[in-house]
């Protein structure tokens, strides 16, 4: 038998380290990536014509970003790199990809999916107004395009990204009106023992919050979002919240960056028929992974935030681990010391992840208070009331059934931004645990394809 054909999907921290480890073992993997450049979202590269230095772009993570980019620059000639290529289906041992309107099926013996994550969103009334962006979007505008999302920006939600993006905006000279965190401070104190698994990262977190306060930015914790005010014509005009003492407060702004930590992009794992399990700590369905990123399907492996949101450093470790798992399964010699070392590091990352989940919880309590006229599905303007009626009038208890009847999750984002909240709305209205509502099944193509896309004639 010749060399196994290995495909790595994604060229972020997990994908790059995975490909590197495979190349070091003498393989030549295919690396499929939707982006124009390697780096993923977190280490996204700015266009060639931009001149900001690494330190300015990536702050405390500058060295890591530079190291990852340098590694990939060396790797490029030693892998079959397919940038600007969407992997949109997995079936019968093939990854179906599209590039420039042409589609191809790539057969594999081993597939490592490093699909990354997107922002996890909880709707608030008015979040469909122009000028509301995800936190990740706010960061990409700055990092990849040197722009702020508005002239006066409110950041709202929870999680480490909330403070990171806000402080990056302040440093870059943007006008940040307020940082509004739904998590109460006490949760952070309770999570400290777990967060101490990565003391340097914890210190960075404290430094970010301190820098915001020094810059005179209002930072509120334990808030309850009430509404993003504005108009269909002009977009965002302000944010209304209740503070931790229950007082209603308003902040004028023309842009809102919002997000509640991240959710893994699991559609491809789903299409590869990987088993999922419900994670009670974060209230979401995640692919079931065994040691080193092996899934329930032989030959399919996961690494990075697309498996479980562990962050960029853990993604680099996870990419290496998944590559070693591939190598081991295909009878290559693998250093047990290296494996053990990586697993020990990854265990620390996981402890820290659980600390973050405790400190910055998914704000499920907002679902009950979400007004009937608040939009849940931004794609098709379907409201919380519409969704609740499918429960009360049609007896729906399951996410895919609700999708079929009222189209929440049917739109062009395919449930990425409404899926989790929609499930919580159904669960609350039906009075059942959210895990019973299930999860939206991944559907091919995982992103819209033009009807003009055509297949390659073999």
């Amino acid at each position, binding site marked *: 038998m010749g060399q196994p054909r290995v495909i790595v999907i994604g060229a972020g921290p997990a994908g790059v380290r995975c490909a590197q480890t495979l190349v070091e073992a003498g393989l030549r993997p295919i690396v499929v990536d*939707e*982006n*124009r450049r390697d780096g993923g979202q977190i280490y996204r590269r*700015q*266009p*060639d*014509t*931009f*001149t*900001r230095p690494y330190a300015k772009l990536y702050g405390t993570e500058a060295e890591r970003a530079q190291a990852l980019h340098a590694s990939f620059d060396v790797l490029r000639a030693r892998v079959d790199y397919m940038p600007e290529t969407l992997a949109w289906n997995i079936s019968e041992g093939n990854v179906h990809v599209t590039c420039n309107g042409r589609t191809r099926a790539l057969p594999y013996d081993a597939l490592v999916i490093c699909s990354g994550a*997107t*922002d996890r969103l909880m709707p608030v009334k008015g979040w*469909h*107004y*122009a*000028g509301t*962006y*995800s936190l*990740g*979007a706010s960061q*990409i*505008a*700055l990092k*990849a*395009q*040197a*722009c*702020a*999302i*508005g*002239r*006066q920006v409110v950041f709202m939600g929870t999680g480490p990204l909330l403070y990171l993006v806000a402080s990056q905006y302040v440093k*870059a*000279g*943007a*006008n940040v009106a*307020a940082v509004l965190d739904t998590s109460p401070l006490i949760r952070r104190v309770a999570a400290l023992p777990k967060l101490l698994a990565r003391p340097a990262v914890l210190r960075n977190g404290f430094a970010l919050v301190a820098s915001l306060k020094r810059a005179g930015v*209002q930072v509120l914790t334990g808030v309850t979002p009430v509404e993003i005010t504005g*108009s*269909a*014509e*002009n*977009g965002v005009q302000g944010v209304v919240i209740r503070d931790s003492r229950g007082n209603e407060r*308003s*902040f*004028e*702004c*023309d*842009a809102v960056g919002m997000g509640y930590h991240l959710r893994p992009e699991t559609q491809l794992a789903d299409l590869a028929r990987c088993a999922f399990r419900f994670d009670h700590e974060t209230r979401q369905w995640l692919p079931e992974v065994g040691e080193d990123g092996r899934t329930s399907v032989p030959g399919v492996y996961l690494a990075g935030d697309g498996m479980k949101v562990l962050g960029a450093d853990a993604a680099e470790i996870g990419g290496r681990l998944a590559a070693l798992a591939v190598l081991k399964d295909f009878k290559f010699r693998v250093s047990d010391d290296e494996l053990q070392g990586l697993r020990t590091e990854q265990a620390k990352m996981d402890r820290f992840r659980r600390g973050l989940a405790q400190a910055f919880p998914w704000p499920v309590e907002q679902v009950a208070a979400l007004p009937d006229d608040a939009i849940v599905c*931004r*794609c*098709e*303007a379907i409201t919380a009331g519409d969704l609740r009626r499918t429960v009360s009038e049609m007896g729906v208890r399951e996410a895919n059934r609700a999708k079929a009847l009222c189209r929440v999750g049917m739109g*062009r*984002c395919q449930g*990425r*931004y409404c899926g989790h909240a929609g499930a919580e709305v159904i669960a609350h209205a039906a009075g059942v645990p959210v895990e019973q509502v299930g999860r939206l099944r991944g559907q091919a193509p995982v*992103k*819209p394809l*033009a009807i003009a896309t055509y297949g390659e004639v073999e």
Partner: protein
Amino acid sequence: MIDNPRPTSGLISQRFTRLAETDRPRVRIAIDGHAVEALAGDTIMVAVLNNARHLRVSEFGDGRRAGFCLMGACQDCWVWTADGTRLRACTTVVEHGMHIVTKQPEAAWANLA
């Protein structure tokens, strides 16, 4: 009670604010027939939102939209070229001479008469 001062008033003709990297060559594009300037290396989204307040109009009657995720996941930034090609504004780099249309062009049926 308003907790922060009002943004400086005046006619706002853009949504995004450029904070750096402005020393790039200019490219001329048109948005809905109006000639505007963008910078080489801009995504279409950045090019448009530095000249306008929105990218598109929701097909579902809830108003104007200006994108949401900027990473090719939400598909809320679709625009069109004058010849009807659909583009995802957050992941497409602007090109000199592009004519961007923010409303979906009507389907044109062949006249078989």
